[in-house]
């Protein structure tokens, strides 16, 4: 089997699973400053799948591709710690405020620049937006086949990759030619842990912007000269030949009309007996408030 070139799309997200009382601003938007930034959980599953293929097919390389503000360089470093070979960061103020359409355009432009490639993997969805759109939209823009909800790679041969998809009511096994894009389901294996030597080797990996900050240690700059692989490539609008009208806020037709913070006033649980009257009463109530029916 020939080695594959795999790109893993990974996003830094606020940890919405550990939400404290100050996680939301009074206007109902997410208070990102109060939530720790983490590697999107489904994307970690995608990374594991990529590393698993790398274990199975010698010579395969895994490149982490992330998009976000400077602190998202943590995602590239995390990728290195767990066994990725390369990392690229898409970062430019002009990409800010992108919805899934503009994001997938931006990512697709970057991936085009990375061609040739065999396989693009990403998490099924990110926990900050839960749209599950960026993967499929990117595949569409790249004009390559897509397989969503992947749980396991069953087989890889010269011409095709066979994957199991985890669907609501069962499992579907599908085959796709290369290159293709897959989004990975959270039911696939958890990502392996960081690797001791890799952590020690890559802990000083930085983007040029990070290195450019005022308080950068001179020794760190020297180290980057000696070990150029520690410098994480950073791509801006021009680097990926992006059309300014299709990126950032300008390229995002999605407009959030309003966000409401819902505070439940009634008790969340109601205890009913198993009498017919109680059950009937509840069904009526549910029909009246349009929960069912």
């Amino acid at each position: 089997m020939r080695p594959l070139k795999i790109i893993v799309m990974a996003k830094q997200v606020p940890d919405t699973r550990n939400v404290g009382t100050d996680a939301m601003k009074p206007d109902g938007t997410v208070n990102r400053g109060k939530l720790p930034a983490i590697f999107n959980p489904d994307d970690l599953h995608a990374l594991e799948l990529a590393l698993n293929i790398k274990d199975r097919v010698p010579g395969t390389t895994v490149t982490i591709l992330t998009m976000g503000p400077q602190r998202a360089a943590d995602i590239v470093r995390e990728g290195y710690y767990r066994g990725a070979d390369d990392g690229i960061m898409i970062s430019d103020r002009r990409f800010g405020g992108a919805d899934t359409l503009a994001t997938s355009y931006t990512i697709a432009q970057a991936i085009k620049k990375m061609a040739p490639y065999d396989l693009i993997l990403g998490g099924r969805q990110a926990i900050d937006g839960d749209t599950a759109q960026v993967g499929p939209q990117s595949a569409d823009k790249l004009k390559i086949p897509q397989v969503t909800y992947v749980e396991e790679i069953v087989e890889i041969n010269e011409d095709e990759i066979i994957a199991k998809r985890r669907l609501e009511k069962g499992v579907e096994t599908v085959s796709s030619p290369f290159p293709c894009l897959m989004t990975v389901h959270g039911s696939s294996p958890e990502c392996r842990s960081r690797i001791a030597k890799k952590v020690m080797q890559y802990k000083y990996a930085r983007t040029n912007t990070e290195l450019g900050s005022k308080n950068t240690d001179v020794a760190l700059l020297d180290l980057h000269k000696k070990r150029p692989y520690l410098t994480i490539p950073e791509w801006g609008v021009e680097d990926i030949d992006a059309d300014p009208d299709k990126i950032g806020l300008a390229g995002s037709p999605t407009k959030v009309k309003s966000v409401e913070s819902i505070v439940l006033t009634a008790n969340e649980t109601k205890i009913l007996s198993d009498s017919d009257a109680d059950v009937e009463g509840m069904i009526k109530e549910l029909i009246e408030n349009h929960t069912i029916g």
Partner: protein
Amino acid sequence: MDNFFNDTPDFKFHLEHPEVKKIVKLKEHDFTEADKYEYAPLNHEDAVDSYEKILEIVGDICGNTIATNAESVDIEGPKIKDNVVVYAKGTSENYDALYKAGLIGMSLPRQYGGLNFPLLPYVMAAEMVARADAGFANIWGLQDCAETIYEFGSEEQKDKYLPRFNRDGATAAMVLTEPDAGSDLQSVKLTATYDEEAKTWKLNGVKRFITNGDADISLVLARSEKNTTDARGLSMFIYDRKSKAVEVRHLESKLGIKGSPTCELVFKDAPVELVGKERFGLIKYVMALMNSARLGVGAQSVGIADAAYREALKYAEERAQFGKVITNFPAVYEMITNMKVRVDALRSLLYETTRFVDLSKVYEEVKKERPLTKEERMEMKNYAKLANVFTPLIKMTASEACNIIAYDSLQIHGGTGFMKDFPIERIYRDARITSIYEGTTQLQAVAAIKGVTTGVFLEQIRQYETEVSEENSEFKSVLQKLTADYEEIYHKVMETENIDYLDFHSRRLVEMAGNIIMSYLLVLNSQRDEKFLKSAKIFINLARSENRERYDYIQNFDPEALELYKIEGGSLEG
């Protein structure tokens, strides 16, 4: 998402001890390896940062894999299948996670694929693993054997065996005990004969109670000199499982640490390689191996003690009786606070001991490369002396204490603790072995009493005394009084010139010294971080009363009363 490193700030605290700088500098050869190995540190801060980052990985695996598997491993246990020991599913998962994270061979030099870590972070990792699952800590901790091969093996053996640890995740075993040779290893009978034709040593005989006996690489103690019966006839050998010349005859059914396979092995013309020189097996190599294993049991015991304490606290904080959460009752909060304080004290003693062992070892290493200065030679000697008596002290103290803490923790759980519903019942069973294996408490006392009789403990106590700051003079005067009592009672025992009498009281004397040492360590800790002040106060309360009890016992003990205790007909001849 529990992380056993991040939830225990004490690890960072103990890594910041001033002496650590010296250890790291020597261990890293003045930071000259960074040009050759890209994961080698550039300076002290870089090295310590790496230790912390790697310990964070260990903490993650402990919290999220090993601890969550502990219950199923305890139930399932290992099995023999086609003469191969098959671990419980969880055990294999645990080992695989640590292996894939590159955590096997942590303290081996980089040229053999290791991380070249000093013992200090390695022992911290061992403590966390034991807190997660004490039985699994044995399987992981046996990577100590690699250290012994590194220290005493030939260049060829090092090149052949050592890279297998980090690269292939090789497991190891120390194959020492036999049916009639437990504590008394000099009566080992397994025979080693040199096969002139095959030009190799071969082993025949039976070994028993061998932890992880079916490991990839085993260090075996065997009798190489015919017609001998003592320690000087014993040599150490490396057995490679690939030879397939050992039968795993039986797995023991045990009270605790059930996930760790305890094997009976039959060697049948098993080809082996001699380690080092003939006849030095027990007197030199096994002694070195045992010392690191004892430190390992010290770490295991502290891990168990911490786990037991946390279980007690967690349960008590949620349990209400008589309309109150039970942590409000003095009888309960006293027990829990004492557990916490003892864990703080034991951990301080554990890492003090580890630093001594580290320092004596790094000087040994440097000595191979360049002659030591006179000052360095003196230091090396001093640290070796301290390591020799502190190692049995921590082994004995921590193993006994973790049993008491586990007992009290189960007590806090009440009737529920006696059921199989909470982890404490497993922790309680697992704790029990620590004061038995790698030398019983009674044998540790025999080794540690040298710290009393040679004055090494006293000298070190005096050293601590000089480090106590002005504002802690109140502590100091209490501890000076305890020290004076200890000195007085020890002299009283020595004056009798009665060896049996000294043996009789040796554990008491060692415990008195240990209490004073731990008290000082907590006081000194509080000078770097005031959160230890409370522990220091409480521990000194305990130490004072415990030492007073021992003092009174010895003071009022007539040497002639020893006769009353003797059991007639106890000798083999009789």
